Every structure is written in structure tokens, then in C-alpha cells.
């Protein structure tokens, strides 16, 4: 084939350019220590790299959520543990108080202790993580009302004395039933008092009977008031409600009359007064019974609302389709109805102050079962924390794997790149040297 100078020059330039291209690519690899720097360098590797980056980013989201969750759960665990301690102390006190030989003063001392424990339960229920309540379900900031700037999830209603959770009474039915039961006991006491009076021989016996009658009426009135409070917390009103109010007033009046007679040692109307007490208590019992169905209906509706509250917890994503709660619903922590811890302690307090030693045994049983519930909850929380720890470890090792994969795909082996670069430079220089020799000569140089 015929070769001309321009052919040689142009093919020389083409080859030099190709060589220089290679040098440039390798140099860029060495400078950035990345094997792929544009999408077209290796599209398959690019796709892999982008997928890995996306996975790493998702992992980091999950890891950060796990941190948040662990922090919240640790606080929760500590709180539930304190709750357990409180129940344990209350249990011991209840067992001591269940001794039939104690005086009212002893019982009052116990009552004060129980009251303190009960108030602490309220305080623990309103535990915060930073500024957010962790046992309020969705209620993390508390609510603003006309009377206060921040109402926590758990409050004790000033009028009714019941524990409210996010505005819902936690144990209205149990409180009402307690009232009914106590009134029944008071009724029995009043009957006995009347009999004492009718069979009494001395004035002292009559006065003692009158005192008992008065005490029974007072106890009935107080118990009925508690039931009334429960009905109040459910927002009830109407004729049956009003009848109960009247019956309580009548019982209070009867108690006052009897107490007056005792203080003036007037035994003349003892039978009438005792009968009045009995009647008043009967009226209360009737009123309570009439109101019962309304209370039950309202309490059932309330229970449904409380169940709905139980589902309202804040959760964070810790895996694909895996989430963990970072707040708890108060109904799960404290229980509802007669299992409610605050209710148990409050009932115990009432029994102790009123001297209802018969009911203390049932408080002991209730405390036992409450403790077992709380321990279960504590174990669950502990279990979740462990699960999160394991998940975190797995994610950390996944992260390592992905980072390695990313590096395999993207990064240049520096030693290899530098070696190749050196080789390419050598080739380039050799081409330069050879070319400069060949291209210069032509026949013209040899003519004289």
C-alpha cells in the first residue's frame, strides 16, 4: 500500500491521542481514587452503587429511629420498675393492715403511707422524656384548658376524685360498684344499730346504738357520694341522679340528728332517729339501684373510648414493615376498671380511713394481681429493648457490608491504578520518541 507523509503523521497523531486518552483516564482514577466517576464508565457498576447507597441511607434512618426508641423505652422501663416497687410497698402495708387487731390510729398511719404511694403513681404516670409525656399515647404535650396552660395526660378530677386519662375516667364502673357495696354494708350496720336500740336496757346502750346508727348513715352518705362522683365523671344527670343527691342529703341529715341526740344524751327519739337512718340508707340503696343501668351504659361507652385510646401510640419505623412504639397508652400501664392501680390504692386508702377492715383482704388480692400485670409489662418492655439491641447490631454489620460493597464497586485499587498509569505514561513517551525519529526523515534529506 502506498504510504504518504500525511498518512504517517495522521496515524501517528491518532495513536498518540489514544495513548494520551488512556493516560488521562488513569490519572483521573488516581486523583479521585474512584474507578467510576461518570455514569457511563461502567453502567452496571453505577446501578449497583446507587442501589447500595440507597440501602445505606435507609439503614441509617432505621438506626436513628432505633436510637430514639431505645431512649424512650429505657425511660419507660425505669418508670414501670418504680411502679412495681410502689405496688410491692403497698402490698406489704396491706398485709400488715389485714391484721384484725389494729387500732384506728394504726390504720390512719397506714392510710397516710398509702396515700403517698397513690400520689406517686400519678406522678410516675406523667413521666416525661424531655418535654414529651411517654405514657399518654398521642397526648405528648398535654392539653391546654381554660384553667391551666398544661394539663398532663393523667389528672385527678378535683370534683369527683377519679383518675382521668386524656379526659376519660379510668374506673367509673368499679367506683360505682364500690359505693353500692359499701352502702349495703352501712345498711346492715344501721339495721344492727336499730336492733341494739330496740333491745337496749340502759341509756348508754341506746346512745351507743344511736352513735352506730349515725356512723352507719354517715358511712352510707360518704360511700354514696363516691358512687355519685363516679356517675358525675360519666357526665350523668337526670331524675335518678337527682334522687340519689336527695337521698344522700337525707342520710347526712339523719346522721346529724342522731349525732346531736348523742351529744345532748337525748334518748327520747332514739328509735325514730335510728329508723330515719335506716330509711335514709334504704333510699340511697334504691336510688343507686335505679341509677345503675344508666351508669352501666355510660361506663360501657367509656370503656370503648378507653380501648380506642389504647391504640393511639406514637411509633417509629425500624425496618421494612417493622415499627416500634415509643409512647404507651396509659390504659396499658395502669389498667382500667377495678384493675387500675390508682383505684386499688385509692380504695385501700378509703377502707383504711373508714376502718373497713373486711375489705382490706380484697385489696391484698388486687395488689398481687396488679403486681403480676406490671411485671409482665416490664418484661415486655425489656424484651423489646433487647430486640432493638439485636436489630441495631444486625444493622451495624449490614452497614459495614454495604459500605464494603460500595467501595468494591466504586473505588479504584490505588496500587493497580498507579501501576497502569506509569505503564501508560511509558507507552506514551515511547511513542513520542519513536515518532519524532521516523517522521522527520524523507528523501529530501539525502539529496545533495
Amino acid at each position: 500500500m502506498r504510504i504518504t507523509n500525511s498518512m504517517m503523521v495522521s496515524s501517528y497523531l491518532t495513536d498518540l491521542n489514544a495513548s494520551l486518552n488512556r493516560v488521562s483516564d488513569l490519572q483521573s482514577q488516581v486523583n479521585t481514587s474512584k474507578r467510576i466517576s461518570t455514569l457511563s464508565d461502567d453502567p452496571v457498576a453505577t446501578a449497583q452503587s446507587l442501589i447500595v447507597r440507597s440501602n445505606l441511607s435507609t439503614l441509617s434512618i432505621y438506626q436513628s429511629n432505633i436510637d430514639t426508641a431505645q431512649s424512650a423505652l429505657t425511660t419507660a422501663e425505669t418508670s414501670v420498675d418504680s411502679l412495681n416497687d410502689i405496688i410491692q410497698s403497698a402490698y406489704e402495708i396491706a398485709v400488715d393492715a389485714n391484721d384484725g387487731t389494729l387500732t384506728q390510729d394504726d390504720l390512719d398511719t397506714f392510710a397516710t403511707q398509702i396515700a403517698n404511694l397513690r400520689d406517686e403513681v400519678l406522678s410516675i404516670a406523667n413521666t416525661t422524656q424531655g418535654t414529651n409525656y411517654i405514657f399518654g399515647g398521642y397526648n405528648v404535650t398535654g392539653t391546654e384548658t381554660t384553667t391551666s396552660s398544661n394539663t398532663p395526660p393523667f389528672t385527678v378530677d378535683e370534683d369527683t376524685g377519679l383518675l382521668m386519662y386524656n379526659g376519660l375516667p379510668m374506673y367509673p364502673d368499679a367506683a360505682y360498684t364500690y359505693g353500692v357495696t359499701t352502702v349495703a354494708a352501712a345498711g346492715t350496720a344501721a339495721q344492727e344499730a336499730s336492733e341494739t336500740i330496740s333491745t337496749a336496757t340502759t341509756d348508754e346502750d341506746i346512745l351507743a346504738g344511736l352513735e352506730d346508727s349515725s356512723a352507719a348513715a354517715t358511712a352510707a352518705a360518704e360511700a354514696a357520694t363516691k358512687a355519685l362522683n363516679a356517675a358525675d365523671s360519666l357526665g350523668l344527670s337526670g331524675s335518678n341522679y337527682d334522687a340519689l343527691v336527695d337521698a344522700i342529703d337525707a342520710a347526712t341529715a339523719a346522721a346529724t340528728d342522731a349525732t346531736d341526740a348523742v351529744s345532748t344524751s337525748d334518748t327520747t327519739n332514739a328509735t325514730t332517729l335510728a329508723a330515719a337512718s335506716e330509711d335514709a340508707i334504704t333510699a340511697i340503696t334504691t336510688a343507686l339501684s335505679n341509677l345503675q343501668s344508666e351508669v352501666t351504659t355510660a361506663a360501657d361507652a367509656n370503656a370503648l373510648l378507653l380501648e380506642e385510646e389504647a391504640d393511639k401510640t406514637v411509633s417509629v419505623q425500624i425496618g421494612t414493615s417493622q415499627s416500634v412504639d415509643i409512647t404507651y397508652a396509659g390504659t396499658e400501664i395502669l389498667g382500667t376498671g377495678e384493675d387500675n392501680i390508682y383505684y386499688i390504692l385509692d380504695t385501700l386508702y378509703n377502707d383504711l380511713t373508714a376502718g373497713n377492715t373486711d375489705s382490706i383482704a380484697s385489696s391484698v388480692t388486687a395488689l398481687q394481681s396488679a403486681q403480676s400485670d406490671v411485671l409482665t409489662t416490664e418484661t415486655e418492655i425489656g424484651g423489646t429493648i433487647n430486640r432493638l439491641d439485636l436489630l441495631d447490631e444486625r444493622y451495624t454489620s449490614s452497614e459495614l457490608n454495604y459500605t464494603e460493597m460500595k467501595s468494591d464497586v466504586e473505588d479504584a485499587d490505588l496500587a493497580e491504578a498507579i501501576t497502569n498509569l506509569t505503564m501508560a505514561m511509558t507507552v506514551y513517551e515511547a511513542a513520542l520518541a519513536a515518532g519524532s525519529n521516523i517522521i522527520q526523515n524523507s528523501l529530501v534529506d539525502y539529496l545533495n
Partner: protein
Amino acid sequence: MASTFLGLEIGKSGLTAASVNLNITGHNISNVDTAGYTRQRVSTSALEPSGMNYVISQINSSSTGQGVEITGIQQIRSDYLDLQYRNQNSEYTYGEYTVQGLTYLESVMNELEDSGTLSEAISDFFTSLNTLAGDTTSQEYRMAVQQKALALTESFNDVYEQLQSLWSDQNTAINTVATEINSKLESIAELNGAIADYESSGETANDLRDERNLLLDELSGLVDITYSDNSSNSSMVDVQIAGISVVSGEETNLIVIDQDATTEEYSLSIDSTELTADNVSGALGAHFNLRDNDTAVDSGIPYYINQLNELAAAIAEDFNTLNQTGYTYPTDSADSELGGDFFETSDGTSTITAGNITLAADIVDSVYNIAASDADLDTSTTESGNAVIASQMAALLDSEGYDSTLTAIATQLGVTVESAETALDNDQSLLESIDTQRTSVSGVSIDEETTNLIKYQQAYNACARVVTTIDEMLDKLINGTGQVGL
């Protein structure tokens, strides 16, 4: 009998031929670097004995030729190789400009960079959403979502604008290339006229033809052409683009360039047939394809713009739907109410694109307008931490896979560029090989020309010697005979 001065004539013809040869050799050597130059050769033939002499020579059996005559100066060029070169050149420049345009595109959408990519913006946005789902009452978390959402829309806007700018560059290039084509077509027509005039005298217009061939080469780079000798005058060349005649003899039928007033898009037509990527190749075809092709095959800029627009629209729609089912967070000045749009258009149009997507003005004004809860917080006052909608928003990344969509777009672009680069390498090798063959046929070799110099110089010397010899002979005859005793 031969004429007295025939010998001188023969010598003279030899001298002329040798000097013409030397001139042509000199012409070749001085044009060794000229682009498109074809080496020239003098064609000579022996001059036959003249007619009368021939009759006499039949009687005398002593006819002699009359020396050498120059029949012409021809170019050594292969038309076939020219055709091959021009076809391949169109392919090559198509590939060259395609790769160039795609490389810019690739750098705009380079998702491989460590920071500043669209993937990163999406990932940061969803990280902020996940954090928000853990505590929707926190103003800091809400602000983070607002900022990351803004960053996301700005990323989209930015990429869109860069793509639009690339589009605009390709559009301008179409105009530039078309104008250049027209200018070359006019030059070819002019040369046609000049060559026809020159060659009407029977000679070949070598240098003018070289010029025209060079123009044809350059033209083939701009757009693929077909050409043929003019049917009435073979000195002229007719040129066709997309099968339509654009040069016919000295007449031109130039490309008409129109520009749409609103979109500023250029459209080209010849004889009301529109030129598109389907009927032209070369640089023009490449620019058309990059500017207009919105399909997934040989995708151009509009395809990627559409993909981005779809992604932006999908994200906007999903978020708007969710935000509208959720409730805002109540503040001192605003109640909790159903949320509005999360993303909206910045230019008042109804369709969301990557260019006009922006964070809704409500959310820009107040981060509490991010409707994170699924209950009215004024009536459900105990649900301040309700984050149902926020959790659903955070889960969109897994369920809708926006990052995978982006990866798919980037990968497709990478594959397109890579295959275009490979095709270009192949085209380039092929073109170079054809060019090498062409140069092999028509290029000037200094060694060869120098040898010819020596050859023709010797020929000239020899002919000069012939003339001198005949001169001496004649001198003897004229001045030396009949001078007896003088």
C-alpha cells in the same frame, strides 16, 4: 522527408513536457499539507507522425514521431473511496455530536457524586420525615422537613433548568449547522459554475475540483448527502439531502429555517418537507435527535426531562393526597384544619413538572401546616402527638420507590452514553481506515515527488542536450556547407 527543424521541435516538446512535469511535481510538493489536495500527474503521449509525412513515410518507410505531447493534467482520486468516506463521515459525526451532547447530559445528572445529587436530596427529605414521625410536636423537626423539602424542589428545579439549557444549546446548534450547510451549498453551486466554465475549454479544473470535493467532505459531516454528476453537464455535481435536490448545477434549493415564536424551537424544511432525526444523519441528525427524541430508544434530552417531570409529579401527587387527608397542628393564630397541598407549582400552571415544583406557600409560611396527624387537633385535644399521616409520608419511599426510579433513569443514561461511546469508537476507526486508503491513493508522498524531481530534471537535461546537438548539426549544415575555400 522529415522537416529540417523536426529535431528541434521534438527536443522542444521534450523540454516542455519535462518542465511541465517539474512544475506539477513542484505543485504537488508545495501542497503536501493542503487539506483535500489530490496529487496531480501529467499525462503525456507520444506525438504521431503528421498526416502528410505519414503518406510520404509510407513511400520512404522512415516515419518518425514528433516528440511528446501533453494530453492533460489529471488528479489521482478514487470516487468510490470518496463515496465511502462521506457516508461513513455522516455516521461518525452523528456519533460524535451525540456523545458530546450525552456527555453534558451525563454530567448534569451525575448521581455518582458524593454530594449534591438528587438521590441525596430525596434521601435527606425522607430522613427528616422519619424523624418528624417520632415527634410531630417538635418545631425543630417540622422546620427540618420544611428545609429538606425546599432543598428537594430546588434540586429538581436546578436539574430541570440545566437540561433546558442543554436543549436550548442543541436547538441553537440546529440553526447554526443549517446556516453552515446553506453556505456550503451555495459555495458548491458557485464552484459548479466555475468548474463548468473552466472545463468547457477541454482542460480539467483540478484545484477547483479539489475545493469542491473538500466542501462535499465537510458537508457530509454536517448532514448525510447523496450526490451525482449533473445530467446535462458532467463538470457539475448535483447534491441531495434526504432525497430532495438542494444543488442542481448552479441552482440552489436552500434549507428553510423557521423558528417558533413561543417555544423558540427551530424547524428546518426543504420544499416543505420537514427535516427531522428520521430523515437526516450527520451532525444535524445528532442535534435533532438530542433535541427531539423523547422515546427510550436513542433517548434524547426530552426523554430525560419527561422522566424527571414524571418523578416530580408522582412525588407531589402522593404527598398532596396524604397532606390533604391529614390535619394541621393548631397554633395561636390558626386552628387545626385539613391540610392543603404539600407541593405546588411555582408558575400557576396546573401540571407539576420538575421545573415548577415548589413547596406549598402555606408550608413555607408555617411549618405547622404540615398535616401530620389524622385527627382534628382542636377537637381531639389529647392527640397532639398523633403522627399517623407523617408515618405514612415517611413510608412512601419504600412503597413508591422514588430512589429506584431515579437509579433506573441514571442507569439508562449511563448505558446510552456508554453504547454511544463504543459506537463512536468503531465509527472513528472505520472512518480513519477509509481516510487512510483515500490518502494512500491521492496523498502526496514527498519521497515519491522528490524521486520524480530527479527523474524530470534528468529528462530536461537530456532534452536540452538533444536541442544542443540538433543546433550544432544545423549550425554545421547552415554555416558550414558551401563555404569551400572561405
